[in-house]
């Protein structure tokens, strides 16, 4: 019952944050110097045409009224019309969202599959060579300019060694699999198309590694430190004294409790990865939301930029909510 109360409270609390997020995005898009109506109508348009456009867009009404109209549009899934291609921003984002989702999910998988064992092993080999190496690896990770890492990966694995493809999601000679989820790895498997799957996999390795490296470093550190603190607790000593094998003590007794902070960080990283995707997708020509927003920056396409910002923030808030709820289920001590 107390859990249910917490869930409800946490859900209610997200509502003002979401409203705040829309308000902030709305205010930022109104901070744009210059006249958006003039920008949309083009340099050569007459003053009357600009005034007409301004009126039809509602830009001549007071700000609070504009905000309410904007909120109403959002509820209907309207993010405005892109200046660059005259298409609804919401539809563009829907089309490319699976590409970003696929990249993010594979990156998270990499983070967990590599970061977790690294962290556990570092904790067990505390202050030995392996631990020092993993420490250097994570300091480099949190200090890494993602865009530069991407370029260096391209230089090495694509240009010099020629092991992996350097851009796009699929070999251009192959037809993309029929769109079911929009994620090529999943769709090609569902279709039973082995060649497309292998090609999609080889295309995603470099960008996914590039995107995951920073969070890999963070997950390794968190797992290490929580593992170290759990291994020092009395119940672990008891388990050892009872003659359980070291593997059983570590994997079964310690890991279960040490995982809680790791789960939190992994969840939060999903949101952060959406930010990192901006740079990674640009470097690897990955046709997702990150590349979309950078292309939009080049055209000063504000509806597209603000639409992206809003979608990412909303996804981020929802993920934080889910992480908090998972946390409450995992750790019965946490109730606010």
């Amino acid at each position: 019952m107390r859990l249910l109360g917490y869930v409800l409270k946490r859900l209610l609390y997200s509502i003002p944050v979401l409203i705040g997020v829309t308000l902030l995005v709305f205010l930022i898009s109104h901070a744009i110097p210059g006249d958006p109506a003039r920008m949309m109508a083009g340099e050569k348009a007459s003053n009357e045409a600009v005034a007409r456009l301004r009126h039809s867009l509602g830009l001549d009404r007071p700000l609070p009224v504009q905000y309410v109209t904007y909120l109403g549009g959002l509820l209907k899934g309207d993010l405005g019309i892109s200046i660059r291609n005259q298409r609804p921003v919401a539809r563009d984002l829907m089309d490319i969202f699976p590409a970003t989702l696929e990249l993010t999910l594979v990156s998270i998988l990499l983070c967990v599959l590599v970061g977790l064992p690294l962290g556990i092993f570092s904790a067990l080999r505390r202050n030995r060579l392996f631990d020092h190496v993993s420490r250097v690896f994570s300091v480099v990770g949190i200090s890494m300019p993602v865009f530069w890492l991407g370029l260096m990966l391209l230089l090495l694995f694509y240009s010099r060694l020629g092991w992996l493809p350097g851009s796009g999601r699929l070999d251009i000679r192959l037809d993309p699999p029929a769109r079911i989820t929009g994620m090529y790895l999943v769709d090609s498997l569902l279709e039973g198309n082995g060649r497309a799957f292998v090609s999609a996999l080889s295309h995603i390795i470099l960008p996914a590694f590039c995107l995951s490296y920073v969070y890999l470093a963070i997950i390794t550190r968190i797992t290490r430190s929580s593992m170290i603190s759990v291994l020092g607790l009395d119940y672990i000593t008891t388990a050892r004294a009872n003659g359980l094998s070291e593997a059983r003590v570590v994997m079964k007794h310690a890991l279960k409790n040490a995982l809680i902070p790791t789960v939190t960080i992994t969840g939060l990283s999903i949101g952060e990865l959406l930010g990192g995707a901006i740079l990674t997708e640009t470097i690897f020509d990955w046709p997702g939301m990150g590349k979309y927003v950078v292309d939009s920056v080049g055209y000063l396409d504000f509806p597209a930029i603000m639409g992206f910002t809003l979608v990412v923030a909303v996804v981020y808030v929802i993920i934080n909510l889910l992480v908090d709820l998972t946390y409450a289920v995992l750790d019965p001590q946490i109730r606010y």
Partner: protein
Amino acid sequence: MWDRFRREHEWQIRELGFTIKLLTRNPSAVAGFTIIALMVLLAVFATSLTRYNPIHISLKERLSQPSLTHLFGTDELGRDILSRIMYGARISLRIGALVVLIAGGCGSIIGAVCGYVGRQLDNVVMRILDVILSFPPLVLALALAAALGPNLNNAIFAVAFVMIPKFARLVRGEALAVKERQFVSAARAAGARPLWIVTHHILPNCLSSVIVLGTLVLGEAILIAASLSFIGLGAQPPTPEWGAMVSVGRKFLLHQWWYATFPGLFILVTVIGFNIFGDALRDVLDPRIRR
């Protein structure tokens, strides 16, 4: 005058001396400090360290490989990349310092006031900061910088804005603890005004945590600002900003590897310097793990 200063602040000076002694014994602190010091030296003495002008165009020498005359090679306009990197150190360090000054200053004041005053004000301001924290930092900085217009000052403002909540939350937490201490009650009983208590008791007691966070944020700010420049929203050509240099160098990556490689390497090393120094500083300043 110096004598009087020394007498009045004897305890603080001893404490500072002790901190420095601990820092010199900490290998990460020494390594981090060395990197930061080298970058500062590069930035300060850029003019005397290199004989090349960072924006001087010499088409005859365009895109030449690293050699003894041009250690890091030249770019597409024949400009020496090493000297551009040295001048770039000025820009990156200035970005980091300005962001920390703006965000640290605003954030600390907001946090101290909210923590001390509490009640409705605290509630409202913290909810506003929650909204800012609901965005991944790079995404919000990108939207802000795009809206304000692509130039370096706007990028600095955007990054600082994104960083304010970090300082505000930290200082608020400390302020909540400090205001319950006896010397604050004593000051209040003696009739001190809230503003005086905030500036004389709350803020000075948060200083060491703010310095630690500031060091770490400095590195992060350099990273985000370089990312914005890479996208085209920060420094504009011909400014020798590191992120912007990588951005142009990207076009020449496959044939002129040195162009994008060296500026990026300097971003990485500089940020590593601030991160390991910041971490070591936290270990040394934290009274729980100190000594």
